[in-house]
């Protein structure tokens, strides 16, 4: 036991306090259980096929696509923070940059993993690269996500190499040093790629001419949801990053970044969210009054079903849109950590709700006039796979926090806090 503890000790960054190996193992244990359960469920899907899910011909997309869209929106903090730090030179956000990279890496790799379970023939998924249909939003998504995942891996590698033991290998040290020079470039490429596929994820639904609930007219070749998704992802990225760091602080009982960082993240998030709500309102107006009537659909067709009624539209705009924006912008509330985090939670919830509406409600609503409203409940295999990805995220973040200098750049944070 002590040997393991000693080994563990040797990998932890010099000069920082971390919880004992036992406590850390105890913390990880339930997450590993969840991860294995998820892996088992995914294995069932690979082995027996997607009949293990509760999806069907009408609900061809289910929990997993909702999860993908949400996870990726949440991971937007990675590219956005990189963009702010390296391109817009907002150096004061640097303390959360590493965290942002890890969160981004987790979100993207998790999303790709879920996507691989979600497709019926994962062994043929590479056909998209060999025979790409350039008109498909999904092609755009696939290309951008895989490229951006590559970028995130490249961004994650230097962070990995900062580990105490790995630094001992001179080649790695040199590599890391050289590689660092590339990072701003990578951040730029990442921002570009990420920008595109956040948008194309929105476009995924916006182009669905056959689904008037999702269909939007657009600018150039992209439907308006393309831009709305970018904006909402930009808005929620910092909020979610803030929540991750705050959770890490809560769990470890240490102050990891200064309040000013929170304020800044909150302000950015709030402003973008306000912008998003305004844009979404205009978009909804145009959609309900021009786009959908043109194809013979009206608000009645979309909002007369309980529970996914117009209430959702209201919730998504006001309590989960305007309210968090105000909370995070207005100095009186933004100064209070509680209000700020509350705003971040609400903002994240709003984007989750938006993704839910776009994915699930779109499929639940009938298109044929003699059809009925559909219901779908995910099977345990779907939930477990989703849970597995969350567990994977927690585990990777925890390990990164423990063994990598995630918050090395922090100044003024208390170095003597004792807990993990």
């Amino acid at each position, binding site marked *: 036991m002590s040997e393991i503890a000693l080994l563990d000790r040797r990998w932890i960054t010099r000069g920082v306090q971390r919880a004992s190996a036992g406590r850390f193992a105890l913390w990880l244990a339930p997450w590993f259980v969840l991860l294995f359960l998820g892996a088992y469920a995914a294995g069932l899907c690979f082995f027996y*096929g*997607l009949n293990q899910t509760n999806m069907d011909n009408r609900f*061809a997309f289910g929990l997993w696509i909702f999860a993908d869209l949400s996870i990726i929106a949440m991971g937007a903090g990675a590219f956005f923070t990189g963009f702010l730090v390296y391109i817009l030179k907002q150096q004061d956000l640097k303390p959360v940059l590493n965290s942002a990279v890890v969160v981004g890496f987790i979100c993207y790799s998790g999303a790709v993993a879920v996507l691989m379970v979600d497709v019926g023939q994962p062994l043929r998924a590479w056909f998209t690269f060999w025979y790409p249909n350039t008109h498909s939003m999904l092609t755009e998504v*696939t290309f951008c996500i895989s490229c951006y995942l590559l970028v995130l891996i490249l961004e994650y590698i230097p962070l990995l190499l900062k580990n105490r033991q790995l630094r001992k290998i001179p080649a790695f040290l040199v590599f890391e040093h050289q590689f660092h020079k590339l990072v701003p470039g990578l951040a730029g490429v990442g921002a570009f790629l990420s920008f595109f596929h956040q948008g194309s994820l929105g476009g995924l639904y916006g182009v669905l001419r056959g689904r008037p609930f999702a269909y939007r007219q657009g600018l150039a070749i992209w439907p308006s949801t393309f831009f709305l998704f970018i904006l909402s992802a930009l808005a929620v990225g910092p909020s979610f990053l803030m929540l991750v760091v705050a959770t890490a602080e809560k769990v470890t009982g240490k102050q990891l970044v200064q309040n000013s960082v929170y304020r800044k993240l909150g302000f950015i998030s709030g402003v973008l969210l306000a912008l998003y709500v305004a844009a979404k309102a205009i978009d909804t107006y145009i959609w309900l009054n021009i786009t959908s009537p043109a194809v013979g659909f009206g608000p009645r067709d979309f909002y007369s079903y309980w529970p996914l009624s117009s209430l959702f539209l209201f919730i998504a705009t006001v309590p989960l849109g305007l309210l968090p924006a105000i909370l995070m912008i207005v100095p009186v509330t933004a100064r209070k950590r509680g209000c700020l985090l509350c705003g971040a939670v609400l903002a994240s919830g709003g984007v989750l709700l938006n993704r839910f509406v776009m994915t699930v409600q779109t499929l639940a609503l009938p298109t044929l006039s003699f059809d009925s409203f559909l219901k779908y409940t995910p099977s345990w295999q779907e939930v477990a796979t989703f849970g597995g990805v969350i567990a994977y995220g927690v585990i990777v973040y925890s390990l990164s926090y423990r063994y990598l200098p995630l918050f090395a750049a922090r100044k003024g944070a208390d170095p003597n806090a004792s807990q993990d």
Partner: protein
Amino acid sequence: MSARYGMVIDLDRCTGCGACMVACAAENNVPPAHSRATARTGITPMLVRRLSNGTPGADAREAFIPITCMQCGHETPCVSVCPQQAVEVDKATGIVLQMPQRCLGCRYCMTACPYHARYFNWWDPQWPPGMEQTLNPGVSVRMRGVVEKCNLCHARYHAATEKAAGAGETQIDPLDYVPACVEACPTVAILFGDLADPSDPVSIAADSPDCFRLLAQIGTDPKIHYKTTQDWIRALADRNSLRSHSPEAQHV
């Protein structure tokens, strides 16, 4: 000259017997249902659905509507979304075809289709022992994890083409190319032909004011036309006709 194959389905003649569904499945080597399959996980490239006027008692009316791929000719929703070109509109025939061997099973096309005419193979196809000998040699069997749909019995189109080539002809004989559902209909409710040929009976029938297309306003130019003289059926099925549609009138 390229053809635009399409249909006119007379809803007044459809008795909902389901012969088209069985004939379609037999022709296209669609497997019998897995024991856990339901109406929403089965494979029915031709699916007859009920229309009901929702009135109880003696005023109740029922009709049936065969739903198959509408072979959209313009901005075909499923073609543009497929990430790996597994769906295309055939230039020679206008058939919207699905290549299950190319498909990766992402099901994006299924969400794109407003008619729900695409089906996912949730299970590996299975037949009782020996029954695989009765499979149609003109159609390959799909594996689990891929999407399939009506290809307008392309095997019959192949056979007709081959026959024409064997006889030294360049054009197929229209009598040689009749999809299984059309052939099976005991009330001759389905008319099939080339909509690009103005003299074809199907083109003439499609011009009737009694004809409409499902969700025509979406603008995908579906090639399956429906015909009815019954006002309640028209009002229920056709969004264009009267705005009498109400979400309460549900499919029973």
